[in-house]
């Protein structure tokens, strides 16, 4: 596979404020990369830099083996889709799709061919002579995708394209974008703050915070082996449970309160003995039982039982520590029920308290 986008040592400063810090990303051809992070993490800014809508301070951007660091957006071979659709309101859908091409003085039959192809792929044929104002949000976003499609480019950039849609349409269009990607096999870079979108769409996810990429990896790795405390807390809903304690016995066990948790089977680096460490366990990797199991376990008291349909969320208190556990629905547990918790150490993550990195 060849590289489609290469970002080399990209730095962006607004005055004295550093927005993006020394970024390096390679995106392979046909890859779907999602930039994920809380608002203000610089994910949209990075996308605008890729598109050429923002001039970068340092570094280089290569697209398809060409240095486009100082090229105009239209010369970079990209198509872009925006959160607010950004359709030209006074033009029909056909006008919106063909405006850019006409401006390049492309022959008319070529324009017609591309518009017809885009409208077939996106099923917007019946809408071609309507104006954006007469379309629903989902239709508008389809047209916006079409406008990127007719440019016949290798790289698609999506800037939170589904954030303005309601939940149902969002999941529909999400599937459609996924389908579009498998059909066209273009490189796609997709910005979102929605982790479901990221986990479902991405070949690789770049989790960002404070203008720095925290982890760039496939969704499974991001979810199961978050590289640091931020990624662990950001991905997953409800959030991972964090137990503050220390490792003892040469790193063979984790001491939390009065409880000793055996770390045998931990999937990570050498644990060693640490005065302070954080054990992160996802809600679905904790088991709940009424009777104390044979091995070491943590006693806890049920506070709230949230029924979600497919499963339940138990909010518990172990000593002073609040925990959340996802359990299958099998009879509800009233508040005050005493239970015992068992942790699946093989799927847990241990973090160094100081560096916040995964051990």
């Amino acid at each position, binding site marked *: 596979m060849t590289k489609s986008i290469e970002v080399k040592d990209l730095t962006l400063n607004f005055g004295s404020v550093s927005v993006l810090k020394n970024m390096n990303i390679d995106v392979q051809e046909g890859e779907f990369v999602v930039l994920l992070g809380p608002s203000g993490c610089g994910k949209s800014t990075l996308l605008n830099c890729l598109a050429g809508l923002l001039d970068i301070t340092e570094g280089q951007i290569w697209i398809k083996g060409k240095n486009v660091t100082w090229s105009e957006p239209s010369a970079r071979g990209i198509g872009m889709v*925006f959160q607010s659709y950004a359709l030209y*309101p006074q033009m029909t859908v056909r006008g919106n799709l063909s405006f850019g091409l006409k401006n390049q003085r492309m022959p008319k039959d070529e324009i017609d061919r591309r518009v017809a192809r885009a409208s077939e792929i996106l099923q917007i044929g019946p809408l071609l002579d309507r104006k954006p104002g007469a379309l629903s949000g989902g239709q508008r976003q389809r047209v916006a995708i079409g406008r990127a499609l007719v440019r016949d480019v290798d790289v698609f950039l999506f800037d939170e394209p589904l954030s303005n849609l309601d939940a149902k349409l969002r999941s529909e269009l999400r599937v459609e974008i996924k389908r579009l990607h498998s059909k066209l096999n273009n490189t796609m870079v997709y910005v979102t703050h929605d982790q479901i979108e990221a986990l479902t769409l991405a070949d690789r996810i770049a989790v960002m915070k404070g203008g720095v990429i925290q982890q760039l990896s496939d969704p499974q790795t991001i979810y199961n082996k978050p590289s640091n405390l931020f990624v662990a807390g950001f991905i997953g809903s409800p959030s991972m449970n964090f137990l503050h304690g220390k490792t003892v016995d040469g790193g063979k066990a984790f001491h939390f309160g009065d409880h000793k948790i055996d770390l045998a089977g931990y999937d990570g680096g050498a644990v060693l003995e640490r005065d302070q460490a954080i054990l992160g366990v996802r809600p679905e990797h904790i088991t709940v039982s009424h009777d104390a199991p044979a091995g070491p376990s943590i006693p806890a008291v049920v506070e709230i039982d949230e029924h979600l349909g497919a499963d339940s969320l138990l909010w518990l208190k172990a000593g002073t520590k609040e925990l959340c556990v996802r359990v299958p629905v099998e009879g509800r547990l009233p508040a005050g029920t005493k239970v015992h918790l068992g942790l699946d150490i093989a799927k847990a993550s241990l973090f160094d308290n100081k560096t916040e990195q995964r051990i």
Partner: protein
Amino acid sequence: MGGDPENRTLKLLKVGAARDLGGPFSALYSRGERMSGQPKRLLRNLNAKIAAIPMVLTTLVVFVGGTIWTVVYSFTDSKLLPRLRWVGFDQYERLWSNSRWMVSIENLMFFGVLSLVFTISVGFLLAVLMDQKIRYEDTFRTIMLYPFALSFIVTGLVWQWILNPQFGIEGIVRGWGWESFSFDPLNNPQTVLYGLLIAGLWQGTGFVMCLMLAGLRGIDEDIWKAARVDGIATWKTYLVVIVPMMRPVFITTLVIVAAGIIKLYDLVVAQTSGGPGGNASQVPAMYVYDYMFQAQNLGQGFAASTMMLLSVLIVLIPWAYLEFGGKKHG
């Protein structure tokens, strides 16, 4: 800012005007909508309705009543005092055969067309320049808007001095040693209207710029990004995408500026008193005032002001049509 473009006309004039163009509009429109919203429930919001009665009465008596009264008496031969002796269209016939009135109308057309074209185009151009993320934008905006804060009388006097051959530009340039320099637009019947135009533009463009700037700021930034990705040149984006999107702002501006032009009076009085040569810069409002209060010929003045009302309506009706006729698209 969503919705189809036809409907956006309405929205921007109603809601957008409130948000983009400042306070007075918002009060006006929100009250209007609330009052027309539930016509059958008379007792709802009783306090508000009682509070509105004086204003409603004032509007009815002063504006509507006064207008009707004026139109009615324009068909009489009232002289110093109004009297109901009907003369049919005599006053209008006399009006349209009066050379001073004809000059006034010609002047107004000439001044009006140039003034409209230039205030709107220069105002838009200034707004575009201001929209380039420049430094000290607030300062520039204040400077541009300052003339609008001055009354037409002050504007007229200032420009009378600036254009005065002894104290103004001509005097200064001659003082530098260019003895034959001549710049005296106000004393030449051929150029006097341009002298008025300069003062009018100086006064009005800042305001138009502010309206336009508000309109430009209301445009979604993603539109600009999309146009850049499409490779549309900046000037073309303005012309083909942004200006059509700002149609409601242009219509609002057009109505405000045009209504101001028809009312033009004090600027002329302060700058030229209708001269030179007696009536080279006469405008209809001066004609009305002179016949009503100087020549003591009320009937003639009423007829002239009725004609002015007619011209205001000619400006307003297309706007009202766009405003209310657009509903069928919604």
